[in-house]
């Protein structure tokens, strides 16, 4: 049935697209057909055109972004030229990346009903359909009167999904659904999408570059894009066996990389898509064990002296409100690069704001090199501790890169113009921004903007830099770029603290992780130990890595050692 011609819902024929504001097309010669009931993953590095492709399907092109299209795109039997965003909204339901930003209604019920309101559905029918849809997506009816912002990350995803499913759409389109979710919630989301698809038979298109996380549940096809073209369109098995992912800067599932390092030849009959179905022969397992034993141990690091210390920190936003943090003890040691992890709302960002003095604790003390931080103003603290916000747009206040980076120096120090210029040049060189020094900030990519914000923090020579989700929404190449840069800064002696959801990041770059949960630190140990402790993983809404599972399959008892050796090898290879 799947192959019958009539069942093609979406068909691109030699389709191309160029934004009015750009000189080069974003999409070239796209030929792609999507059949009814299929589940497709579209992946590719940032800027490969996958979002543009999505905008063509849901009608945001041309409704919000104008440009020139060539070729043909048939949606539900009609040419895209005869359709508009409103007609398409009945056909495709889009769940956007930022579930917080896309809530329109003040209550969950109102938000789910939004599409119906716009369709003039009567109040009675509307209430019924909201109830039906929320039951299907697993939202309790008692939640309908809550504000969407009060919900947990997973519930928010359900509400966002219900808001588009209420319209009986034929296609569900997910635009980077995992970008802002903690690992466990991301896993649940993929599971939810899978269940909904099986129940309703809806066609599902997922746009995402976090391949391993999406492949946690089956997909029919993976479309790989690069520079506006479709590179491959195949089953996930075939794609994983090829070396296309590596070539185009998409991170392979970790167990696949590990198997490749171990010299295991991948083939489709090993069912490499999901680790829980992976078929490994005894010989292959042997290869993995041999590889494990052949790579060197990571050296144990000795403990350095404490630079920053927090004792008994207690904090709540309103004087009688719930405690966001309750009795937190924490230490930062010389020269380390560590991460703060935990589920959304566990108090990670609040804690870092307290360190920087943006908020004041009700109880407890912070000391820096033995000196009480509460005596210092925000400005004074900033000379020692820099804070980089998640969204670079929230930090950049000058139109030119040079001006932005020198802002802190001009405002604070008594340096002369020449000294400032020299210092700024030096920082720009360290950050790899020197060639762009006179560019406007707006011409930079997200990753480059991030560098600008880091550069402007570096200008004041802090000993510690705290970064909130430095790689959120970044593809593998940008991720590597940003992280290698931070590693480099770390090797110059700056303490780096990363607040993150990204387990790969934590494993690869940090020696230690502090896990926040329910207002306190529930564990503070090496990243491998954290991720191999199943109970901890559950409590903190983290995710075990597939490497642990692989080491179990191969009968290697110490999975944290396996992870450590893998990371070491991987970093060597990637260099």
């Amino acid at each position, binding site marked *: 049935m799947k192959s019958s011609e009539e069942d093609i819902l979406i068909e691109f024929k030699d389709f191309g697209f160029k934004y009015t504001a750009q000189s080069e097309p974003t999409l070239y010669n796209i030929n792609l057909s999507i059949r009814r009931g299929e589940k497709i993953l579209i992946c590719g590095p940032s800027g490969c055109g996958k979002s543009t492709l999505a905008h063509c399907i849901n009608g945001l092109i041309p409704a919000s972004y104008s440009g020139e299209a060539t070729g043909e795109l048939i949606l539900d039997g009609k040419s895209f030229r005869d359709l508009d965003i409103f007609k398409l909204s009945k056909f495709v*339901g889009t769940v956007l990346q930022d579930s917080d930003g896309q809530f329109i209604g003040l209550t969950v019920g109102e938000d789910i009903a939004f599409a119906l309101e716009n369709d003039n559905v009567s109040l009675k029918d509307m209430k019924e359909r909201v109830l039906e849809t929320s039951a299907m997506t697993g939202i309790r009816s008692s939640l309908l009167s809550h504000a969407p912002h009060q919900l947990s990350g997973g519930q928010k995803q359900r509400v966002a999904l219900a808001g588009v499913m209420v319209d009986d759409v034929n296609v569900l389109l997910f635009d980077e659904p995992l970008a802002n979710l903690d690992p466990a919630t991301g896993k649940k989301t993929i599971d939810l999408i899978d269940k909904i698809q099986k129940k309703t038979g809806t066609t599902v298109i997922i746009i995402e570059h976090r391949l391993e996380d999406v492949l946690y549940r089956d997909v029919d096809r993976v479309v790989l894009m690069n520079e506006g073209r479709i590179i491959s369109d195949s089953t996930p098995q075939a794609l994983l066996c090829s070396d296309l992912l590596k070539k185009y800067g998409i991170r392979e599932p970790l167990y696949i990389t590990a198997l490749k390092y171990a010299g295991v030849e991948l083939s489709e009959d090993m069912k490499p898509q999901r680790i829980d179905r992976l078929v490994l022969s005894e010989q292959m397992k042997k290869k993995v064990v041999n590889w494990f034993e052949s790579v060197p141990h990571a050296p144990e690091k000795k403990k350095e002296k404490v630079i920053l210390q927090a004792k008994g920190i207690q904090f709540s936003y309103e004087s009688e409100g719930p405690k966001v943090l309750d009795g937190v003890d924490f230490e930062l040691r010389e020269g380390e690069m560590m991460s703060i992890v935990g589920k959304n709302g566990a108090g990670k960002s609040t804690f870092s*704001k307290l360190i*920087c003095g943006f908020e004041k604790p009700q109880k407890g003390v912070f000391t820096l090199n033995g000196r009480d931080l509460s005596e210092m103003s925000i400005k004074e603290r900033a000379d020692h501790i820099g804070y980089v916000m998640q969204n670079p747009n929230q930090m950049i206040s000058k139109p030119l890169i040079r001006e932005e980076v020198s802002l802190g120096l001009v*405002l604070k120090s008594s340096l002369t113009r020449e000294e400032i210029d020299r210092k700024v040049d030096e920082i720009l060189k360290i950050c790899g921004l020197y060639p762009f020094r006179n560019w406007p900030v707006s011409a930079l990519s997200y990753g480059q903007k991030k560098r600008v914000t880091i550069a402007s923090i570096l200008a004041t020579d802090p000993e510690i830099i705290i970064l909130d989700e430095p790689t959120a929404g970044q593809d593998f190449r940008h991720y590597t770029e940003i992280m290698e840069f931070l590693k480099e800064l770390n090797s110059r002696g700056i303490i780096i603290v990363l607040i993150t959801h990204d387990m790969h990041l934590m494993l690869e770059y940090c020696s230690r992780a502090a896990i926040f949960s329910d207002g306190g630190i529930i564990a503070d140990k090496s990243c491998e130990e954290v991720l191999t402790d199943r109970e901890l993983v559950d409590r903190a809404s983290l995710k075990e890595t597939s490497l642990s599972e692989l080491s179990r399959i191969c009968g290697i008892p110490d999975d944290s050692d396996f992870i450590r050796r893998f990371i070491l090898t991987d970093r060597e290879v990637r260099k």
Partner: protein
Amino acid sequence: MTNIFNYIERKSPIHSLTGATKLLCLLIWSLAAMTTFDTRLLAVMPVFAVILFIVSKIRLKDVKIMFWFSFVFMLLNNILIFLFSPEHGTTIYGTRTVLFPIFWRYIVTKEQLFYQLNVVLKYLATIPIVILFVSTTDPSEFASSLNRIGVSYKIAYSVSLALRYIPDIQREYHDISMAQQARGLEMASGKQKLIKRLKNAADMLFPLIVSSMDRIEIIASAMELRGFGKNKKRTWYSARPFRSADYLSIAFCVILAAVSVYLHIVNGSRYYNPFI
């Protein structure tokens, strides 16, 4: 964080009135208070307003900023009236009872005092009701009620979205200003020159504007993708049927307005004149 212009959720009879009722009542009530200068009616209305406030369970400290602001405005208004037309009362009431002179043309008369008392009463009659409306009507109900009285739903919705994002933007402003202060940007210190302070404020606003634009783009896409703006009309999930309390409230306000008109006819003018 103190609410400046915001919905405060409580369970009260006022909260459970429909948005449209509250908007209609607000309009009729203000009309009644605006048109009349009858001191007797104007004296009764603030009493009603205070009672409504108590019923609504909104406490004074919830809305003190708004009250404070209106009080300053009222004071300013009165000073200006006296400065520009110290004899306004005497022209209205036709008599001139001098109490004491201040200097030059500024002579305090009973009539002027009485007139300005009326102005104060007008404020006292309307301000609490406006504040009450704002703090007991949630933004989406506000939008639906604007729409019900004939305002285009697109305009109604944008007003309500703007109201809703005020707390978010306040929070974001706080974060941004902290991050900028950490870089040495100073706000509101008396030591700096005005121009420098304005420049610093601009440096802080720039990122706020950029990130607000991002936010607007996302919400606009989300709305369009779900069919906002497709039809001339739309329905409202938060709409509630009118109940007897709604009809009673409207009737009460209509009676107030009728009294105001009746007094206008009886007095032969907008003013109640105790001086004849």
